[in-house]
């Protein structure tokens, strides 16, 4: 068992290495350079461009640039082009801002989609099922930013409370509980927007899982034993239907980076996604590369978590691997 975990661990480290290599190469081989940050910007003097080239070792061969990037990153010396701040602390701060969003939107996805999916499965073929199926597809199909603007439009026009950013500006000096509620409110619309897609897909998935399980033999057996319907559904069926979701939990982790670029930008939330977007706009290579790497790391962590959870939850897997 431990040998297998170690093996998986090393395999993933190797994977990470290759990912960082490819990411580095893609971004550097793409035409365009940071020195072209803004070729029409008269404030950008030739000396500044040289400074940037020097700082990012752009004149070195590609492999050396990669090594230097890795060296600076591991020492914590890597600095943003834009303002010279250390990349790691910048990313860490934005990560902390994104974390509550992620937690709340995950909570919303997981609590809302199950009842909907189960209900749809139990009333299969009924108008409710059809409507919820259509709504789910509609939510999948609507561009997230359109929905976000509709929400903003509705809140600002009808309720008139601030929705932008992480807090209501100008309330320093308010009691501590206000800051918490204020943060909670500002999280609500944006995490709702981030959860919409998840709710739609997960509820459809729950429904199909439930349907598969309900048709299984052991459920028929349970019914035949004369157990009452809710025991059958919630004790026997649901438990088995939920098993695959354990894996999905880990797979949501990378959503922290990639899933939020547009929504965070629209709501002016100072999170990782917006940091990444701003870095792209200003060709801030150290940040782009590092965020990209972070995305890959989170994906691998997510996969590992789901593997481990699955092994813990499903005795068959545990058995096979040992």
């Amino acid at each position: 068992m431990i040998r297998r975990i170690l093996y998986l661990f090393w395999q993933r480290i190797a994977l990470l290495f290759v990912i960082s290599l490819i990411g580095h190469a893609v971004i550097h081989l793409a035409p365009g350079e940071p020195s072209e940050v803004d070729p029409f910007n008269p404030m950008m003097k030739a000396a500044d461009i040289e400074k940037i080239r020097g700082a990012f070792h752009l004149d070195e061969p590609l492999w050396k640039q990669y090594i230097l990037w890795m060296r600076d990153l591991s020492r914590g010396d890597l600095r943003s082009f834009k303002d010279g701040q250390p990349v790691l602390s910048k990313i860490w701060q934005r990560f902390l801002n994104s974390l509550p969003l992620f937690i709340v939107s995950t909570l919303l996805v997981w609590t809302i989609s199950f009842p909907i999916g189960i209900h749809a499965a139990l009333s299969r073929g009924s108008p409710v099922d059809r409507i919820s199926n259509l709504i789910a597809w509609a939510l999948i199909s609507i561009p997230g930013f359109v929905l976000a603007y509709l929400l903003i439009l509705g809140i600002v026009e009808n309720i008139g409370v601030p929705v932008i950013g992480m807090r209501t500006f100008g309330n320093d000096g308010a009691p501590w509980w206000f800051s918490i509620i204020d943060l909670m409110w500002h999280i609500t619309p944006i995490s709702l927007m981030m959860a919409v897609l998840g709710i739609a897909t997960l509820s459809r998935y729950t429904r199909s899982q439930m349907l598969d399980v309900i048709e299984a033999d052991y459920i028929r057996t349970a019914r035949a034993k004369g157990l009452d319907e809710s025991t059958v559904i919630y004790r026997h069926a649901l438990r088995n239907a939920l098993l695959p979701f354990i894996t999905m939990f880990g797979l949501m982790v990378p959503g922290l980076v990639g899933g939020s670029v547009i929504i965070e930008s629209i709501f002016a939330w100072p999170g990782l996604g917006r940091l990444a977007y701003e870095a792209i706009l200003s060709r801030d290579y150290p940040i782009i590369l590092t965020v990209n790497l972070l995305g890959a790391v989170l994906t691998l962590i997510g996969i590992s978590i789901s593997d481990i959870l699955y092994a813990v939850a499903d005795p068959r897997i545990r058995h096979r691997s040992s």
Partner: protein
Amino acid sequence: MRNDRTVGDDLPYTLNREAGNASKSLTEESASPGNDILSSIRRNPLALGGLIVLVMLVLIAVIGQIATTWMPALDPATVRLVDTLRPPLHVVSDLVAAEDRPLFGHYLLGSDHLGRCILARMLQGTPIALLIGFVAVGIAIGIGVLIGGAAGYFGDRRIGPITLDTLLMRFTDIMLCFPTFFLILTVIALVSPSIWNIMIVIGLTSWMGTARLVRGELLTLRERDFVTAAHALGIGKWRILIVHCLPNTLGPVLVTATIAISGAILTESALSFLGFGVQPPFATWGSILADSKNYIFDAPWLFFIPGLAIFAVVLAFNLVGEGLHDAFNPHASGPRGKIK
């Protein structure tokens, strides 16, 4: 293991770790589904509606392309500054020169901040939206079938210490690890944003699902009797692959492709919305949305029209995709079935 079965559910969260042994139930023995599929879709009102929308859309795209090129009244570039931000069905101002008047003397879908006719701009964007979907997904499917086919069918060949299958699937895993939208955004921001670049980049970053799917299908097909029989008859490996095996993966691939097109359209609109889309003055739905964002409180219809169009098209593709999926899997848990 049946959890990865439905392709429609394969959208944002499921990263199919076990795709290899996952899709047994996908293909039944009936190898020529043709008529069954059509009739199956016909019985599914949502999919049928989606299909009708798509057919109309293709018509609109063709007509729009011709009209915006040849009819001056529908020239999407005509600027009429005396008529800016007009609501739909607004009558054109008398100050507009005769040759600049929009179709029927009305702004059927309103006018934008430069007085350009939204109808004309939407028409100009329609073929682009479809083109982006089809080309990007075409690229993705092509790569996916190539890599998935190689891994699934020639997977046990060895290159040095590892098998071809391991090599290709590890590569697929690596590609899956990148935060896709962020990667697309980065590359598009670095290369010059042209419509072809966008298609290529979307295609290059979204083939992984297809590759896994095709590999999984081929792994099961390889063990089937008719393949064994073909081997016994001495038919060449390539011939078996192309003539006998790949056609059998067509169904699932088609389903994936349909739904992937909607994804590609959404991705393009998001890119355009962030300002990395097709260069002005050319209009795509995403860029019309991006332009109208600033007027959302003053001229909301500017925002709703392209938003609604994208929504309708993506929904249509998705519903058709689901219809196809149900048609290929009669036992799947579509809404038509009954609990036994």
